[in-house]
């Protein structure tokens, strides 16, 4: 099952609540409610029906959008209730036919994106004082339960029927792909044997036992359901401080796109399809808001928010819609002062909006870390790697720095490099880079003002620093060499190397997704002619290769 049964349709990442097909977002004071009511006939592409609140990428794009809008547009919200609009079913998880008829690459990107969305829920809870209540008004299976455990609290309907479950192993021969196995062990801290039992019983666990095992936080009868949900939501909301009362509206991110380019306001993608690479450039404007109040007044036009929303859109687009592109040549540009100002405003002492923007930039940088493309920071003439810009370079697999006094490159350190944007491993990109030589981190952080290629090279920020004569050839060779390697080997190698240092729940989720789920997704026992995923919903019974590896 390698190829799609239906032609793929480009995934679009811009949406708005008034265009949602699958969710209803409403507000009541400081409590927002997100009702999942998936429209079966509105799949992202043809060939499957989204029955029983099962989801595809289109459904998840709306969820991500809603989470983002709640944080920016509704800072008054302190609790989000995530619930279902169907009777007796909360959510059946990712749509199986969709998965079965997707390419491997699409499946992997789909899982990655949905994982990022779940982590965004947790990030909002940890950093924006937005607590999530999963109000499971019916059975939550597979990805449905995984969505629930990304929330802070889970309330399950006690109708002697509704259960939470992971039917992936018993029914499909695959694993819960959205952090499910990691969150039951590491977040909800279930006993390992309970996890084992839970993950192999298709119909799941309901009622009191679900509470005893800590699969859910509480159960409530249907007649008291609305009341209980309200009560729990109130409690969660009251546990959080008030952030602000008036939000910042997010307009749509637009770009001019043609076969060779995708041009946003601050971000540009220029494709070299023959070479299977793309130039990604982010350019800061001549000047930006002078203080946090001005940034808030500019709102969604503030260049920082806009530029990183554009970058986010560009990365998602590259992942889903440009599978053949293998290498990103990344450049940051614009005045060093603008970059430095940005970092000053987002690094603290500002207002809720600059803080929110900081967390958003953090998420976009993580999206970059997690993008399965090779990343080269190309530090050539008039590129600026200051603060957040430097983070972009540090996120790359290699840094090529042009050492030519006539064509200067600008580097600079700001508070942004001191752990303002932690990676998934919980530490900064500098700390990750210099894991074996922590003194080097301090040395870099101690540098003041801006500096050029040679100092950057001395500080260990350049992988290679060719001079003017060698530059073009070096870069050409590096590109040609990279694009000639096996793309699979690149994806695996990069994912291994990017996240040195501590393991966190987040690194475990992505690491295990890549290592185990994506392996199982490729195995005949799942996707072979008689694999469990292939056979599911067909007249055929799966047949397994019984050899353990």
């Amino acid at each position, binding site marked *: 099952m390698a190829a799609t049964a239906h032609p793929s349709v480009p995934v679009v990442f811009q949406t708005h609540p008034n265009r949602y097909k699958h969710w209803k977002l409403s507000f009541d004071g400081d409590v927002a409610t997100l009702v999942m009511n998936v429209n079966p*006939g509105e799949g992202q592409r043809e060939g499957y*029906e989204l029955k029983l609140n099962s989801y595809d990428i289109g459904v998840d794009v709306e969820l991500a959008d809603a989470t983002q809008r709640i944080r920016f547009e509704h800072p008054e919200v302190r609790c989000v209730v995530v619930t279902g609009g169907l009777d007796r079913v909360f959510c059946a998880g990712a749509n199986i036919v969709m998965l079965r008829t997707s390419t491997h690459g699409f499946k992997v990107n789909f899982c990655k994106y949905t994982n990022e969305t779940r982590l965004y829920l947790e990030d909002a809870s940890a950093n924006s004082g937005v607590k999530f209540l999963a109000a499971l008004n019916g059975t939550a299976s597979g990805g449905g339960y995984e969505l629930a455990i990304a929330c802070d609290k889970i309330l399950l309907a*006690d*109708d*002697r*029927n509704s259960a939470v479950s992971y039917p992936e192993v*018993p029914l499909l021969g695959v694993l819960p792909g959205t952090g499910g196995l990691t969150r039951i062990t590491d977040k909800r801290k279930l006993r390992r044997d309970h996890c084992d039992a839970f993950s192999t*019983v*298709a*119909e799941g666990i309901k009622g009191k036992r679900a509470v005893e095992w800590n699969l859910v936080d509480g159960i409530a*009868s*249907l*007649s*008291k359901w609305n009341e209980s949900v309200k009560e729990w939501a109130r409690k969660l909301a009251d546990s959080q401080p008030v952030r602000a009362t008036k939000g910042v509206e997010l307009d749509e991110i637009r770009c001019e796109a043609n076969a060779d380019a995708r041009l946003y306001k601050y971000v540009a993608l220029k494709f070299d399809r023959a070479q299977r690479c793309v130039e990604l450039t982010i350019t800061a404007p001549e000047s930006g808001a002078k203080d946090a109040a001005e940034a808030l007044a500019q709102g969604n036009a503030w260049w920082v928010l806009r530029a990183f929303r554009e970058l986010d859109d560009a990365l998602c687009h590259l992942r889903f819609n440009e599978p053949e592109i293998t290498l990103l040549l990344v450049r940051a540009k614009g005045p060093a002062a603008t970059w430095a100002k940005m970092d000053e405003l987002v690094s603290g002492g500002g207002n809720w909006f600059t803080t929110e923007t900081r967390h958003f930039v953090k998420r976009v940088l993580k999206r970059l870390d997690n993008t399965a493309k090779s990343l080269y920071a190309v530090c050539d003439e008039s590129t600026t790697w200051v603060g957040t810009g430097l983070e972009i370079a540090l996120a790359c697999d290699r840094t090529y720095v042009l050492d030519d006094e006539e064509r200067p490159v600008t580097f600079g350190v700001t508070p942004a490099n001191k752990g303002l944007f932690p990676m998934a491993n919980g530490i900064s990109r500098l700390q990750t880079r210099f894991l074996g030589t922590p003194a080097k981190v301090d040395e870099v952080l101690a540098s003041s003002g801006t500096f050029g290629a040679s100092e950057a090279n001395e500080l260990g920020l350049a992988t290679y620093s060719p001079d003017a004569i060698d530059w073009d050839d070096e870069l050409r060779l590096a590109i040609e060499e990279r694009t000639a390697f096996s793309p699979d080997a690149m994806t695996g190698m990069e994912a291994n190397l990017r996240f040195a240092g501590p393991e966190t729940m987040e690194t475990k989720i992505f690491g295990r997704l890549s290592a185990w789920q994506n392996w199982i997704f490729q195995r005949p026992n799942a996707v072979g002619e008689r694999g469990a995923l292939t056979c*599911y*919903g*067909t*007249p*055929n*019974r799966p047949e397994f290769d019984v050899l353990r590896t």
Partner: protein
Amino acid sequence: MTGIDYSQKIPNNVDLAGDKRLQRALEAWQPNYLEWWAQMGPTDFNTKDIYLRTAINVGAEGWAHFGYVKMPDYRWGIFLAPQEEGRTVGFGDHFGQPAWQQVPGEYRNWLRRLIVTQADTEPASVEQQRLLGHTAPSLYDLRNLFQVNVEEGRHLWAMVYLLHTYFGKDGREEAEELLHRRSGNADHPRILGTFNEPCEDWLSFFCFTMFTDRDGKFQLLALAESGFDPLSRTCRFMLTEEAHHMFVGQTGVGRVIEKTLTLMKEHPERDVRDFGAIPIEIIQKYINFWASSSTDLYGAEISSNSANFFRSGLKGRAYEEKQADHLALDQAYAFENFVDGRISKEEVPLRNAMNEVLRDEYVRDNQKGIDYWNRIAERLNSPVRFTLPHRRFNRKIGCYSSGRFHPATGELLDESTWQAHVEQWLPTAKDKAYVKSLMKPVYEKGQYASWIAAPAKGIDDKGVDYEYVKLA
């Protein structure tokens, strides 16, 4: 041990006396069952002597043993149809292999779910009907109601026996849950929608036993084919009792029709309401409601579960032995799907359409019941004819649930057309109020309510004026 001789109290052919584990389980469950019966059964009649049929063994004589019994003393027995030597799995991927005498581990959860879903309907119907005794149209009907009730109770026992014997702790917990869900309860309803519909009047009761119990018949027929032999044997025996329930429904509605048509003939210029009978159009509306609601019970047209159950040999087709190909692997099933507001012919793998295959049999069987009622009309020289609503009509489950369809033709209707006609097709509040107004008990021997004819003959060769229930 309580010292109760269970083989005496619980007639059985499963060697209950020799099975300590089962004894222990049932000892714990039985008091809860009796408590459930006391709370949710036809409570107000528990002290009355009722002329009931009790199964005391599976022989030709034993399954229909008549006598006066108080319902709580009814001997809810556990009976399986006799074991067939060398029985093999009759369909699916295990076709031809020896039938399982123990639950195959691989299919344990599916089997348990099938059994629990079936079992849940049994106490549900008792709960739905628990107050009808107060408005019975005759002692004959009152007795039939209670016969149905105790046998649904026995069917629960039969399913609980399977859960207790073959499914360990989980099975015992599920058995316990069967007593805790309640029909129509907002907090813990019964599993299937139809079994949460109120059954508040006798016309509904007759329609229920006609249409909903007929679903039971086909589910039992499909489970009687099961490769899990104890389930198959249990269901085969249950089918003998289920037949009586449908008899109650079919003849019950028939007698209502007979009464109305007779009055119409005698008083062509009068409204039958003047005589306390039920107008033809209301009867048709009740048929429309219960037939459509019961048609939902087969589930979605295309179903992964149905394919799984079939391929694994757990749930077959009704009368599987009549099929030529028991693998049903390469065959397709053509049906009319309703997607995006359009009906289109579609072919799907046969195994995924097993719900629909069973529904086909059900719809055909329902039509026979309608034909029976129309023969009553013919016999009375009446031009009135009843119809079975189209299978797309008024559905809540499956592809047709997203549209509105005409009850006779099945054609797609827009919402305004539906709203303009729905009162002609489904019982209105006024219709229900009228039927309810007729529900007054008739407890005198040989007397029948104004809206129903006496049956052609009584039970167990007793007359229609026999004292089937001793109320004094």
